[in-house]
């Protein structure tokens, strides 16, 4: 294989979206300048980039705070989501009894529950991570469960014929075959985690040195600094992309040699 093949693959993967991003930003820059749009409505992309550079220490510190909470929330939703799905998949009656209640995680308005979490858990990292978990766990549960119950019945029968117990069937057949679904759920959860983290920070985040991007957004908005708002939003989006990309990469590695979804 050519030594430049990895570079070509990298450019082929990331080049098109980067070109679209740059073109989009140029269009917005030209439009804002031509229309003389007020800065408090839409700051120029060049001003946003300048703010990203000039205030990088401040913004990166906030990004790190948000990242910590997002990772804790995502980790909890990944672990709990898979565990809950395994429990639900283990029995038809358990599934029928408890599945409807998992929808609670999808529908609960985080703005209502965040203040209560800050009372039960203390404002800051704990409450924010809990919000991130609540917002992101449902897709993991739903997708993992879908994969677990969709195992090829012929293979399940084969395991039964060979005297495999429930646990063996679950962990040696059902769970491995549901891995593509698990990673689908984790990909969706990755983006939702960032949203849940930032929104929770609006309400229960710490101010000061440990403030996250959500607090930066609210504070900048309140003080009229729309360039800082957009800079923080860009960083939050980048975090979401990074988490999504990481899950994608891990998924490809895990599924690489045996599942069609990891080959393209």
């Amino acid at each position: 294989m050519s030594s430049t093949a990895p570079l070509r693959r990298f450019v082929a993967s990331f080049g098109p979206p980067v070109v679209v991003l740059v073109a989009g930003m140029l269009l917005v820059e030209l439009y804002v300048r031509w229309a003389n749009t007020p800065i408090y409505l839409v700051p120029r992309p060049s001003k946003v980039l300048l703010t990203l550079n000039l205030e990088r220490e401040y913004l990166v510190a906030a990004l790190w705070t948000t990242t910590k909470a997002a990772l804790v929330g995502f980790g909890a939703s990944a672990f709990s989501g898979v565990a809950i799905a395994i429990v639900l998949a283990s029995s038809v009656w358990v599934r029928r009894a408890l599945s409807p209640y998992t929808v609670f995680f999808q529908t609960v308005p985080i703005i209502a529950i965040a203040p209560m979490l800050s009372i039960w858990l203390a404002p800051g990292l704990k409450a924010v991570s809990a919000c991130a978990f609540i917002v992101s766990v449902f897709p993991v549960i739903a997708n993992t469960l879908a994969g677990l119950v969709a195992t090829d019945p012929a293979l399940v029968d084969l395991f039964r014929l060979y005297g495999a117990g429930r646990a063996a069937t679950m962990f040696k057949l059902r769970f491995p075959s549901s891995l593509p679904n698990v990673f689908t759920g984790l990909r969706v959860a990755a983006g939702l985690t960032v949203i849940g983290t930032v929104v929770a920070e609006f309400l229960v985040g710490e101010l000061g040195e440990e403030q996250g991007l959500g607090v930066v957004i609210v504070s900048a908005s309140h003080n009229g600094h729309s360039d800082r708002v957009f800079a923080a939003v860009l960083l939050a989006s980048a975090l979401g992309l990074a988490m999504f990309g990481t899950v994608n990469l891990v998924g490809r590695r895990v599924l690489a040699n045996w599942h069609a979804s990891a080959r393209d």
Partner: protein
Amino acid sequence: MSTRVWTRREIAVLLALSAAVGLGCKKDKEAPGAGSASHAKHLSLTLDWVPEPEFGGFYAARESGAFGTHGLDVDIKPRGQGETWKLVAQHVTDFATTSADQVLIAREQGADVVAIFAVYQTSPQGIMVHKARGFSKIDDVFTNPGTLEAEDAPWLKYLLRKFPGSVVKLVSNSPGIASFLAKPELSKQCFITSEPLQALAADSDPQTFLIADAGYNPYTTVVIARGEMVRDEPETIKQMILALREGWRAYVDDPAATNAVMGKLNREMDAHTFAESARVQRALIETDATKKSALGEMTTERWQTLAQQLVDLAVIKKAPPARELFVSPLATP
């Protein structure tokens, strides 16, 4: 496929309907004036929170007919989302309420908004603590361990500068008073006309410190308009100011009827709290200064002081001339 042709009768009916709709939508360009209710100028006023005694005078102006008397038909919209000055600047609403420091921030961002009426002469912004903590002054909030729920607003920057080496943990302000009720060590930002009264009603022990007493006292619940409206429609602005003055006079003197109206719009505040809040805020609205001038009146000195404070806090870069920031009701003939 057949193509149906409109008959002449159908076309005539359609044209007549279009003309009727067009006439109905035609804006009334007449200037407002006393007694011209049938030609009242339609305007909108967006509030920056839910209906509470803080906005009582606006509802009183509507209910008492003060707006109508001055040729205005004002649609009051509670709880504007986000910074209300943006809504005014972008023609989403004609008037809105905000605080004086937001006017300065808005103008630095290029939004041509001007203050026309200031409800609170003394800002009701405060910090609420539990009485059991034994604090005697606002300094204690910052010099003792604990948590303060507050938004990162100019007043907080002012206090953090005033009390360097603060040991209190700062967290975002959560809605409602549940966190204050649950945690004895929690201090919380508040309007002294609202949250402390709710806490008292919940059998808590709130004690409040006014931030104005610490030296930061922007006009609050300030009615703003677009600068172009102030320049191009001075008669509308004058009538609006007069109507607001009458509405607030009526509300300060007797808030009961208006409280009943607002109580239907805001079910979260009971009648007793409405009455108490209206009572507590009276001294913040009608001060010695307004007794000499008029309700809602503003002064150049107050605006200059605020502008300089915001420059010192690096909230704005430059203090604009005070004359650009407000319209003085007493200057209107």
